């Protein structure tokens, strides 16, 4: 046997924690009570009735030597899947003689939906097939939990076996238009900037200056005017787009929680920007978000996807914009924020980003609202006040020059972002 096979065999051996069966204690109590009753009644002959039962208990206990280990082998069909994909898990359990497999449970947390497909238990071995569907993105750490019985049912044992972690990557809408900033950095790209230089788009004609390349000389104009003229062209520059995920709160709602929707939106924006040839990155407000500085290429997209599946609330990430380093949130970048807009700290961070001159667009991912309790007198009023407050918030952001669009459940992100992508996002003057 090779060394790898040996280590795999060692990993599949699981130690079992054995304990007396739950019914044993009540049974012993009953026997003691029955013995006391027999003595009280003076009917010693009833001992004869109890003799087989006591003998069976003693015989079972006397020979109770359950094994310390069982073998659990698990095979997972895929360890990296996308949302909605299914993973097939095959489990084989091998137990020594005298051990009975009572129950096998596959626990994978809330990210995966587990469906048992088959289970065949034979003598000393059992095989089962489960199907796990990635209900949402994230990392799942599936466990197999086994319940065993030995010593003729006098002892029950439990053991567990960890399966390889499964990463479920988020799915994202396909976008054709992503907001871009007004100021474009000196990077070669696809956007027509305001700067004149190398490019194909006509910008104007001017007199020849020493150093101008010969190929830019406009010969028809030169012939008409009698002196050298050159054609000026607009440079084609790349934009930097940063998707910001507000992970300070996660509100459960139909069609995915606000954090799930935010992650899907951020991924869609990053993917579309990278496909266009721009630099794109991801940062988080609050929660646990691995920041990814704007970069380009398929490998960067893979890194972003890898980072996005670990996003969760409750972390120690800053909720103010001043903490973002320039490399992560470079000046002049277009910032697309996905937020439920319910955390005051996130709102002040948006205002701060705006003051620092970023071109901002906010996508409201909150698709639900507080519901009035049935029969509650003041609840409908409170809900109306909440709506008024929400409208006021949007108005406040609009006054700051931050456009806010809502992302309803029945609309695609393309439809939501199209109005924002028509013209560049203008930043505030610093």
């Amino acid at each position: 046997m090779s060394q790898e096979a040996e280590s795999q065999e060692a990993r599949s051996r699981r130690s079992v924690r054995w304990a007396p069966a739950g019914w044993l204690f009540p049974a012993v109590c009953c026997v003691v009570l029955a013995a006391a009753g027999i003595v009280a009644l003076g009917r010693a002959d009833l001992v004869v009735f109890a003799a087989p039962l006591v003998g069976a208990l003693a015989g079972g206990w006397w020979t109770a030597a359950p094994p310390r280990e069982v073998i659990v082998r698990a095979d997972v069909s895929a360890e990296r899947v996308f949302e909605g994909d299914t993973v097939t898990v095959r489990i084989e359990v091998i137990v020594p003689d005298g051990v009975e497999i009572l129950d096998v449970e596959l626990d994978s947390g809330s990210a995966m939906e587990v469906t048992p497909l088959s289970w065949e238990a034979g003598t000393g071995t059992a095989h089962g097939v489960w199907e796990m569907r990635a209900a949402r993105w994230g990392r799942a750490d599936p466990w197999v939990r086994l319940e065993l019985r030995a010593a003729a049912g006098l002892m029950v044992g439990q053991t567990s076996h960890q399966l390889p972690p499964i990463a479920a990557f988020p799915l994202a809408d396909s976008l054709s238009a992503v907001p871009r900033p007004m100021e474009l950095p000196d990077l070669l790209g696809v956007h027509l900037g305001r700067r004149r230089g190398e490019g194909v788009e006509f910008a104007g004609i001017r007199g020849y200056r020493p150093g101008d390349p010969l190929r830019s000389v406009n010969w028809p104009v030169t012939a008409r005017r009698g002196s050298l003229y050159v054609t000026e062209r607009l440079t084609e520059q790349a934009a930097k787009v940063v998707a910001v995920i507000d992970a300070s709160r996660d509100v459960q709602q139909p069609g995915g929680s606000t954090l799930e929707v935010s992650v899907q939106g951020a991924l869609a924006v990053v993917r579309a920007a990278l496909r266009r040839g721009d630099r794109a990155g991801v940062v988080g407000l609050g929660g646990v978000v691995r920041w990814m500085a704007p970069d380009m290429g398929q490998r960067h997209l893979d890194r972003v996807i890898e980072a996005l599946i670990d996003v969760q609330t409750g972390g120690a990430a800053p909720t103010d914009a001043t903490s973002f380093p320039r490399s992560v949130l470079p000046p002049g970048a277009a910032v697309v924020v996905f937020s439920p807009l319910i955390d005051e700290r996130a709102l002040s961070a948006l205002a701060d980003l705006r003051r620092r001159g970023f071109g901002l667009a906010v996508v409201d991912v909150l698709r639900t609202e507080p519901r009035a309790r049935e029969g509650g007198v003041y609840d409908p009023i409170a809900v109306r006040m909440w709506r008024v407050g929400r409208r006021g918030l949007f108005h406040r952001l609009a006054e700051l020059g931050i456009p806010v669009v809502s992302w309803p459940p029945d609309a695609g992100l393309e439809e939501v972002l199209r109005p924002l992508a028509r013209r560049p996002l203008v930043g505030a003057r610093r």
Partner: protein
Amino acid sequence: MPCLLSGTVMLGIPTLLALAAPGRPDSEAATALGLSVAIVLAVGATSVVVTLVRPGQGGSAPLAVLCAALALVFAPLDAWADGLTGVAALLFLLSARMHAGASRREVDAGQWWLARRPMLVGAAVTTPAAVASALVPTAWSLPVAGAVGIAAAGLCALVLSN
């Protein structure tokens, strides 16, 4: 099937003992005793049926055994009958558990009983010893029980070793 058979034997022996009890049937005490035995056996029979129909219910099988023990309290003394009822109760409890297991998944009956061999051997040692000790005078009960128990254990060892 083993569950029903053992349950019938377990409740049938006290019933037969009660029916065959000597005494005046028209006396008030005999009527009350007969009524008590009838109630206890009826509850026991119901418990057996519940064990068969709803195998997942954990309390019905022990209740049936308890009813059999109570019926033996009311019935006249008979060591052989007590011993047989005890063996039937043990088989009933074990087969009820097998029945419950079989309701969840397929169970190989032969393997299942083989796994419980130590319990059956334990019962095979203690039951003859207890019956023998009940049949002899009190002064001889302990030595006889010991001797019969050792003999039964030896017999079991002989049978199992072959």
